[in-house]
């Protein structure tokens, strides 16, 4: 099983390396966002002692994970909608290898993109106060968030009937990032949006990252963020496996 998954991963890797545009795009977007938001809105945003660029970096990182994972939906969908999956299925190889290959590739790509985005943030003027322990915890939370998002994008790739639907889901993800604490404190939102923003997974994850990096009081955010991530991973994994199996035994 590990061997089959490894070969499947190698295949995904080769295909990813063949179209580096998608990685470059996934990197350019967050950097542009940081520059735009940091310099354009930085002047009017009044957040007391924190500079606006420091404030938005955690949100940008989350956004970059979400955007960067979209390509997983497309590659899963492409494989499922051509005869390729039938060929794999008619071979004596592990059934899950196909999915594990995609998931591994997706997680690695997101980690790389995230690390590069954080690097870019430093260049632009991001100055966190986090110590080593804070960085380690932040990385752990981010890693879990990456895995959770990966399973969601795999599910989207499995259930989407066409490319347009995948774009529709991508748009939904975008709404979630904007209706979170990514670009403004949720207290400034109108009531309905605030309730939504405070109770969706991205807000506690962003708050946790922000707290760790800028040295705020964390409160319950870390635990809520962990609960969301672990919950999404478990549900996402089970759901993805169930959908995949039902697609295989038509």
């Amino acid at each position, binding site marked *: 099983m590990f*061997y089959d998954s490894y070969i499947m991963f190698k295949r995904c890797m080769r*295909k990813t390396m063949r179209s580096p545009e998608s990685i470059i795009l996934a990197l350019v977007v967050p950097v542009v966002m940081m520059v735009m938001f940091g310099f354009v809105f930085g002047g009017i945003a009044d957040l007391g002692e924190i500079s606006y660029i420091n404030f938005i970096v955690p949100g940008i990182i989350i956004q970059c994970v979400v955007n960067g994972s979209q390509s997983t939906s497309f590659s899963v969908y492409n494989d499922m909608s051509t005869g390729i999956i039938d060929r794999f299925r008619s071979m004596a190889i592990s059934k899950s290898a196909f999915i594990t290959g995609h998931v591994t590739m997706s997680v690695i790509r997101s980690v790389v993109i995230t690390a590069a985005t954080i690097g870019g943030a430093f260049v632009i003027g991001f100055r966190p106060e986090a110590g080593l322990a804070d960085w380690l915890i932040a990385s752990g939370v981010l890693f879990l968030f990456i895995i959770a998002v990966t399973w969601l994008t795999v599910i989207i790739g499995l259930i989407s009937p066409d490319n347009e639907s995948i774009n529709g889901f991508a748009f939904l993800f975008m709404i979630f990032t904007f209706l979170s604490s990514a670009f403004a404190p949720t207290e400034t939102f109108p009531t309905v949006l605030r309730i939504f923003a405070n109770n969706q997974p991205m807000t506690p994850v962003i708050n946790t990252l922000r707290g760790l990096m800028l040295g705020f009081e964390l409160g319950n955010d870390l635990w809520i963020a962990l609960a969301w991530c672990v919950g999404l991973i478990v549900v996402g994994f089970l759901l993805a496996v169930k959908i995949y199996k039902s697609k295989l035994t038509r």
Partner: protein
Amino acid sequence: MENIIEVKGLRKSFKKLEVLKGVDFQVRRGKIFALLGSNGAGKTTCVKILTTLTKADGGAATICGYDVFKQSDDVRRSISLTGQYAAVDEVMTGRENLQLIAELKKVSNFAGVASALLEQFNLTDAADRLVNTYSGGMRRRLDIAMSLVGDPQVIFLDEPTTGLDPQNRLAMWDLIAKLAEGGTTILLTTQYLEEAEYLADHIAILHNGVITAEGSPEELKKILPVGEIQLEFLHTEEKDKAIALLQAASYTLKIHRKSIEIDNDGSVAQVADVLNRLTAAQIPVARFTQRQPSLEDAFLTVIGER
């Protein structure tokens, strides 16, 4: 000679649509077997069940002695599938596509196997180009080459020539015939009677969910309808003269407003005789067509006989 595939009473429905209503057939080792049927007859469904991709609702099937439903991993090790829609990866090269399958099948020396297949399928020049630059015929060839990795005992080819131009179709026929000479058993599906006749050792016609007729091409020829020659004339007088002439030569004719039809079993001698008589009598023929029996005719005849 032993049967390598045995199918008994295979049934499959999609919701209320009964696609297979009890399909029976056997395939002998090392032979080419053609499953002939029109669009929507259930050929792909049959192939998918036998290649373990779809579950049947009932019936039994064995391949190489393994139960298709219970020993699917053993079956998968014995077969390979070239589906109706090309299963090649567009953004990989031909060589990479082949090596991927070789690695998944744990073939030792996978690079060598890939090179040999590229050579065999005349793809060496295009080996390191991305597949999205390949023509339809090249894709088909690569697809089949991928199926040959690891020397499976049985190869399933679902409509291997659909979408190919006449030249590529002939090349594909040659290729399939060569594979069978090498001892591989081939089950192919097709919508074309002529293709089945040309390639197969044994033909089974799938219609309305059951095998309505089967046999060697020679056996089927006897029960299938004959084709016909059609002669068209510009003027009624010419037609009338021709009718008189041919009836005198004891041909049975079907007479239409501007044309006449003569039953023809594909015999060239008969065609020559008819044309010679008309030429000798100086009767001008405006148009001459020879018609093969269509698959629909074949079905109608076969069903009519039952």
